[in-house]
């Protein structure tokens, strides 16, 4: 009964979204304000309807209503309450409902925030938002209806995947979706800007925070996914260049490019065509990513979420991209802007180079992700494009991005003389050089890793120098260090928030570089009482004991860890069977410190010896710290700008 109400909610939303799209377009064309007001109300109504539908689906999961096919396929009687709730987005139908629900909430927020603003843009933006939503609602009401009933309800449900029973399941998918879906808002405004011809500041200004938020959520969703995989999947890493990971990474890269190039538009009124193009591509990639995750066309660790809705997505993607890019081309002539630069050596130019490297990085990931599909279609052979490829092709481009990030930070708007820039860069270059020499002396010889560290040091020095200069100006006015820093952030949150984000990215780069270049892996068989050494850690197998928790049972290896005779406690990696699904699961033994992670995988006992794979991954912790710093920087960057007390130095 309740479930039928949920389905009714989806159907009503579909009808309303179709009406809203038509009404908003008609209202804008004919200037009927009442139609537009009706459309706005419709948007809010859809948000309420889909909230209700989502609540009903969650309720059905909590109540274990196995008469619903989707519930029966994603939970069973042994599923704890928490994971019944997250079963909502456990596979495709619910994930699509989550997509639609988030989009409806975003759309309602857009409508409420812009009640009095952008009278020309808004109707078209509403039409685009609701048009996209209508596509998802069409899927939800037909081929992937989460409220579909089973003719004969089973007494117990099926278990999908034990790996999804993890706290990561609560954060990773919703956060990632907040990012994916969020790109629709700037996209809608971009299309509205193209239709109305108002391609100036209005659309970029009103969507700056939306773009920043979706960029942030995408990046954070990826990081949380990596953290989850690292702890739970038990293969020793956090990133595998998996097609599904890649498909969220691509829009992130393009949005990163956009967030930089849009500053040129805001400051100089240039690059508007380019920015519109970037947003359109980012939206296309977000739909492509959703499609790739949900279609199962690629082999991936995420392939629990397979289905046959692929073709529908491809058609939607093709229509949306042809329409949007076609519109951009058709308006190209009207978008001729007066472009003028004082110098090739300017912040404007450096942002352009930033865009060159970031879009090349995105293109590389796109090529690596999609090429196997093309190859299979042409040659009938499956190939993989995995980590060795990206290490050789993506890493050099990423290093180049770091270089541009560093130099660009020190180049002011307008123009800069090479001599002055050289003098400004020399301190950072000296620091980087010194650091490089030191690293070589201590034995860091791998070229890629060495370059990664040296460039990170270079960019860090430059970024911190910007802070030092900024606060110095205020301290001369008599402010203390902390007050000077706070007022620096308050008067120019966008710029200095951005620099904090850069510092967070650098920490992540250092953590990723160290843990991928200097990770050590040793495989061993230990009998009880035997010892082994890895790095500074001495491991002693005490015994192999039965393992049991509420959902899994198996065996665990009790391993005493010590460092130079000091006992550091015990790790208990386990090999277990998930009872409800009969699937094997690996429980990693992990000791994480600021310096390195001791990571132990226990795979069973052969000839009385416990088989262990032991990894020592340096500096992994700093990846998570970097994500925290990045969060802080993003929060600063969305702060409203306070009136300047001190004129900004160029």
């Amino acid at each position: 009964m309740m479930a039928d109400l949920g389905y009714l909610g989806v159907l009503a939303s579909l009808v309303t979204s179709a009406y809203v799209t038509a009404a908003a377009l008609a209202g804008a064309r004919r200037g009927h304000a009442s139609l537009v007001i009706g459309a706005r109300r419709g948007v809010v109504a859809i948000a309420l309807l889909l909230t209700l539908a989502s609540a009903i689906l969650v309720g059905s999961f909590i109540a274990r209503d196995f008469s619903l096919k989707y519930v029966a396929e994603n939970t069973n009687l042994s599923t704890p309450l928490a994971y019944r709730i997250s079963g909502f987005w456990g596979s495709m139908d619910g994930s699509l409902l989550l997509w639609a629900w988030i989009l409806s909430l975003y759309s309602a927020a857009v409508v409420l925030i812009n009640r009095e603003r952008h009278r020309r843009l808004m109707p078209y933006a509403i039409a685009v938002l609701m048009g996209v939503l209508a596509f998802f609602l069409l899927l939800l009401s037909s081929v992937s209806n989460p409220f579909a009933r089973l003719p004969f309800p089973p007494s117990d449900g099926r278990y999908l995947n034990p790996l999804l029973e993890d706290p990561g399941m609560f954060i990773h998918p919703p956060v990632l979706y907040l990012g994916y879906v969020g790109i629709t808002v700037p996209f809608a405004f971009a299309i509205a800007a193209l239709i109305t011809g108002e391609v100036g500041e209005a659309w970029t200004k009103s969507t700056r925070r939306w773009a920043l938020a979706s960029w942030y959520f995408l990046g954070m969703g990826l990081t949380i996914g990596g953290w989850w995989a690292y702890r739970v999947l038990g293969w020793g890493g956090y990133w595998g260049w998996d097609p599904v990971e890649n498909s969220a990474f691509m829009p992130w890269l393009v949005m990163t490019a956009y967030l930089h190039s849009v500053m040129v538009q805001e400051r100089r009124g240039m690059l508007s065509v380019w920015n519109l193009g970037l947003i359109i591509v980012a939206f296309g990639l977000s739909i492509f990513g959703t499609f790739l995750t949900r279609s199962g066309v690629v082999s991936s660790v995420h392939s629990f979420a397979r289905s046959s809705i692929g073709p529908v997505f491809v058609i939607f993607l093709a229509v949306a991209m042809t329409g949007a890019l076609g519109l951009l081309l058709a308006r190209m002539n009207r978008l001729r802007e007066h472009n003028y630069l004082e110098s090739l050596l300017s912040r404007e130019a450096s942002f352009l180079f930033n865009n060159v490297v970031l879009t090349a990085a995105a293109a590389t990931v796109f090529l690596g992700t999609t090429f196997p599909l093309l190859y299979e279609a042409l040659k009938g052979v499956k190939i993989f494009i995995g980590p060795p490829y990206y290490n050789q092709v993506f890493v050099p481009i990423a290093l180049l991005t770091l270089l541009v990030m560093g130099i660009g930070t020190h180049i002011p708007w307008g123009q800069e003389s090479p001599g002055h820039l050289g003098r400004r860069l020399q301190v950072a270059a000296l620091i980087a050089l010194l650091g490089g020499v030191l690293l070589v002396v201590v034995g860091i010889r791998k070229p890629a890793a060495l370059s990664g560290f040296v460039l990170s040091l270079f960019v860090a020095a430059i970024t911190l120098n910007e802070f030092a200069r900024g606060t110095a100006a205020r301290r001369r006015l008599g402010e203390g260090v902390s007050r000077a820093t706070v007022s620096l952030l308050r008067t120019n949150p966008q710029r200095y928030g951005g620099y904090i984000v850069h510092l967070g990215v650098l920490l992540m780069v250092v953590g990723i570089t160290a843990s991928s270049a200097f990770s050590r892996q040793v495989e061993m068989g230990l009998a009880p009482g035997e010892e082994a050494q890895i790095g500074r850690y001495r491991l002693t197998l005490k015994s192999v004991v039965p393992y049991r928790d509420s959902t899994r049972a198996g065996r665990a290896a009790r391993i005493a860890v010590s460092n130079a005779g000091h006992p550091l406690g015990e790790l208990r990696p386990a090999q277990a069977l998930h009872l409800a699904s009969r699937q094997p699961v690996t429980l990693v033994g992990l000791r994480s410190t600021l310096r390195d992670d001791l990571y132990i995988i226990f795979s069973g006992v052969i000839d009385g010896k416990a088989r262990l794979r032991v990894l020592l991954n340096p500096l992994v912790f700093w990846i998570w710290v970097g994500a925290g710093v990045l969060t802080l920087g993003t929060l600063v960057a969305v702060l409203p700008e306070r009136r300047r007390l001190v004129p900004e130095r160029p």
Partner: protein
Amino acid sequence: MSGPPRSLWLLVLVLVAGAAWVLSPERAASQTIDERVREVAGRLMCPVCEGQTVAESNAELAEQMRALIRDRLQQGQTAEEIIAYFVSRYGESILAAPPRRGLSLIVWIGPFAALALAAAIAVATLRRWTRASPGSPAGVPRP
């Protein structure tokens, strides 16, 4: 130009010292057998897994393959010989990255070609813009 404050130097010193402390010199030594096994295994996809390399997988087959790689390395075979052996048994779909020939050459050259092309276009565009006349209606040069 004003020099950086002393605190910055201190921070850099701490960073460098920290990096030196973390990445101790023993790692400069020539590759151990474990590292070589991992490197070769990282170039092969685990045939029974979804998107994992032989180096990462906990599958029994992957473990056996790692043991085989270790044996062969210890017998003096090169990484290329071992890879060739696995390709002869499983076909090229076992490779974690496609070979640099034929159609697959596209993925190896494409990104760098695209990067060079994009950079050339950017430079050409910027040059055109610097030659244009100032007096942009929308331009707000500086605050």
